[in-house]
């Protein structure tokens, strides 16, 4: 993309990341050299495809600090969250508490609202509660490690411990966090499920990852049933597999999974430390340039509504002008080939929480983002609001 569009300043990585050549080559290689289905036959190219998918599963497991038999491939983070929510639907009863936060992506909100609607469970938001509140009655706590609109990193370990110690479950959405920080399930300590999306991590779209703690897998009902998920089948009976394959019916997105494996290799080979250092450096530079152009008043997510549980920030930032519509600013930026997200960024509760009915301008960094990109954006933002004022 960057080669073909040198004029483009792409700052919408929280929406989707651009794909490295190695990822594109890996997908092409599958189609050109071993385009076969997996896990069903034993001829050469089928074995090659199966091995590559297994390799991707192991790479993902190592990446997030879990065992490969705890990694389920889905189609997206959204699908993965739905798998958890609807897979546990029989576990909830009227009056049970599902704890969320006001900083969630809509995909980590709507499935839980649906579960509450169907079961009579009650939704509560951690931001509305006193930090000293009794969280032991919470049946499940679902939260994002990093906000997709402010980039803030959240630490709920004390709350998660209380919930976990009483038998509650913890669902962690790592979709944005993995691009901007280390995420290790073991170090999270209280994490029963974790989800992320391939396409936010330099991989192809159409693949999500769901970590399910091994002893919970048999308690989760699959969202979709089909072939390749059972140990026994007869005219009137089937028995599901016990491992992650019980949640992977039919033919998966083979090329996507192989592409995700290539993306993780890309990250590992580039050096995760270097990427995260780069992210921090860009963030510091960004705030420096905001100050230079007198734009700090428009930083979204600061101020008295800021979060008591946020402890740092990754390379996602937003600006909100009190009078100028973000779509208008984005329109002028687009005319200078600067790609940003305008609006509520699928985080309606966040926008509402900060009283931004029209949304924000959000920028987000990646490994290929440069200081020049940030300078162009900040200068163009200044120019846009001057033009529209």
């Amino acid at each position, binding site marked *: 993309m960057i080669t073909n569009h040198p004029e483009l300043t792409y700052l919408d990585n929280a929406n989707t990341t651009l794909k490295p050549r190695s990822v594109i080559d890996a997908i092409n290689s599958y189609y050109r050299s071993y385009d076969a289905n997996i896990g069903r036959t034993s001829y050469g190219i089928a074995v090659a495809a199966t091995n590559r998918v297994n390799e991707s599963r192991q790479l993902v497991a190592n990446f997030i600090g879990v065992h490969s038999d705890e990694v389920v491939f889905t189609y997206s983070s959204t699908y993965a969250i739905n798998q958890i929510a609807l897979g546990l639907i029989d576990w909830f009863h009227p009056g049970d508490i599902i704890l969320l936060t006001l900083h969630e992506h809509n995909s980590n909100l709507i499935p839980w609202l649906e579960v509450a609607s169907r079961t009579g469970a009650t939704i509560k938001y951690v931001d509305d509660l006193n930090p000293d509140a009794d969280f032991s009655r919470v049946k499940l706590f679902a939260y994002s490690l990093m906000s997709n609109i402010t980039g803030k990193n959240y630490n709920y370990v004390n709350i998660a411990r209380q919930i976990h110690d009483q038998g509650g479950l913890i669902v962690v959405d790592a979709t944005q966090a993995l691009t901007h920080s280390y995420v290790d399930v073991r170090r999270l300590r209280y994490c029963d499920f974790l989800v992320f999306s391939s396409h936010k991590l330099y991989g192809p779209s159409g693949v999500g990852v769901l970590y399910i703690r091994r002893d919970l897998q048999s308690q989760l009902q699959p969202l979709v049933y089909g072939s390749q998920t059972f140990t026994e089948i007869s005219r009137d009976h089937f028995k599901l597999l016990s491992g992650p394959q019980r949640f992977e019916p039919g033919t998966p997105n083979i090329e996507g999974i192989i592409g995700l494996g290539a993306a993780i290799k890309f990250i590992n080979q580039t050096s995760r430390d270097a990427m995260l250092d780069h992210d921090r450096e860009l963030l510091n530079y960004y705030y420096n340039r905001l100050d230079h152009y007198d734009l700090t008043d428009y930083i979204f997510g600061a101020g008295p509504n800021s979060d008591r549980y946020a402890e740092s920030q990754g390379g996602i930032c937003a600006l909100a002008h009190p009078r100028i519509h973000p779509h208008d600013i984005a*329109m002028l930026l687009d005319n200078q080939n600067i790609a940003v997200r305008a609006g509520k960024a699928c985080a309606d509760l966040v926008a509402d929480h900060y009283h931004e009915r029209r949304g924000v301008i959000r920028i987000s960094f990646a490994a290929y983002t440069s200081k020049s990109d940030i300078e162009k954006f900040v200068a163009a933002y200044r120019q846009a609001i001057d033009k529209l004022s």
Partner: protein
Amino acid sequence: MNQLLLDDIVFHYKHPIHRGTIAGVQPLVDVNRSCGDEIELYLVIKNGRVANAKFSGSLCSIANYGAELLVSQIINQPIAKLTSITSQQLLDSVNANFDCSSKQTISTANSLLENPTRLRCFETAQRAFWKISSQCTELRFRTK
């Protein structure tokens, strides 16, 4: 987006001609929840024609542009002919001006029609206007 079109949009945003309210007239309202645009469209109908029209509300520049073009086109026109007005018709007048001034053969303003998100903004005033068919017995129009 073509620079001519962009300049025209920004010009109308900063120098609207038809913004305002009309006392005694209940407006037609539309809200675009996905982006927060809210419009109130005021119409005065006399002898079956749009005698006066204004709009107000919190609008992005493209929604404002759509409203400006709509009001420009409906004033003094028979209301019966206007309920099926389309975005293409509104943009045809813009295209005529652009094509004439820049000697382009491509319809410049039609780029708005190709962007579903921005088209929805552009049609904010039209959505309010289309409600006239269902609400005309309830609206209090100023008539003489």
